């Protein structure tokens, strides 16, 4: 029998609830020692990728997060059907990993930050600075070397300066936001304009403080665009050997 799992929770207590706000989803907790896997029965429609199903999944997870620490791990995440007979082996084989992760993420939520800059403008700025002075000096020194020097500038120096500058901007942003986080993960310069994709693991008690700190960026100088997503279950901070987490930000 196929079921839908919503994750592992830090409780083995009995749950049998109809979740309001969903299309009649009833959830159950399958206990294993002192933890449990929260599941619901599934039909074909609940396996489909749709906004309704995604919304239902989020409602259930949010409902669980109010009372428990929720460990959303593959193959237990949204739209991944699990065979009922596989639940016990999953719990048995991963019990200590589940426990360790539950401890790490207990009372914590995840926030995703995106920082966008104008990559072309930054590169133009860097190139302009070089051309203005350094090129003139080199020209006087050795005109035959200009082409080669230009290539080096374009391929190496400008790129290096671009990355160095990105690192500095990221550090400035993180100096401000990172102090709220117990763990963080960065992806730098995933594209020319995407300066930073960061994930912060924040204690629930500090999430308001973190959100208020983020609001400061709305009026900050520097011509960067910031977006914040969360609070979310800490999908990206789950570390279980042999099990893939939702995304890799390591």
């Amino acid at each position, binding site marked *: 029998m196929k079921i839908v799992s919503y994750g592992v929770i830090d409780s083995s207590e009995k749950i049998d609830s109809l979740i309001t706000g969903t299309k009649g989803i009833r959830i159950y907790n399958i206990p294993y020692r002192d933890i449990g896997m929260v599941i619901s029965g599934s039909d074909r429609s609940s396996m489909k990728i749709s906004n309704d199903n995604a919304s239902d999944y989020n409602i259930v997870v949010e409902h669980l997060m109010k009372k428990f620490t929720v460990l959303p791990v593959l193959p237990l995440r949204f739209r991944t059907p699990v065979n009922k007979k596989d639940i016990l082996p999953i719990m048995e084989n991963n019990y200590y990993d589940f426990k360790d992760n539950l401890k790490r993420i207990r009372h914590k939520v995840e926030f995703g930050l995106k920082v966008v800059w104008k990559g072309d403008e930054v590169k133009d700025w860097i190139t302009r600075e070089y051309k203005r002075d350094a090129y003139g*000096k080199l020209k006087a020194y050795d005109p035959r070397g200009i082409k080669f020097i230009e290539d080096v500038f374009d391929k190496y120096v400008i790129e290096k300066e671009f990355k*160095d*500058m990105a690192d500095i901007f990221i550090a*400035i942003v993180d*100096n401000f936001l990172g102090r709220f986080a117990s763990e963080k993960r960065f992806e730098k310069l995933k594209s020319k304009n995407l300066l930073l994709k960061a994930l912060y693991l924040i204690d629930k008690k500090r999430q308001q403080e973190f959100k208020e700190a983020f609001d*400061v960026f709305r009026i*900050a100088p520097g011509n960067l665009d910031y977006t914040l997503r969360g609070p979310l279950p800490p999908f990206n901070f789950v570390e279980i050997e042999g099990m893939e987490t939702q995304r890799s930000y390591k």
Partner: protein
Amino acid sequence: MLSASQGWQFWNSMGDITSTSDPFKLLNLANEFDRAGVLTYAIELYIKILDQYPDTLEAVAARLAVFLIAKRYENEGNKETAISLVRKVTVIANENC
């Protein structure tokens, strides 16, 4: 960024070009102090960048950093320091206009 008057460059033994510039070095150092929580030193260097290299990308970064430090002071209840910091940056910006 490098400029002939402000920075330096050389060919190293590997035939590679290495370059850096004064404002970038200052910014890097300021950021290290900022990260280490030595805010007075960090501010001094950020202000120096704004004052001496106002039209550089480093100045853009320094302005953001000083703004965020001022906000930290404000959040910690140290409003006077925050205001004087913002005032200082505004004065420098006006002088450079």
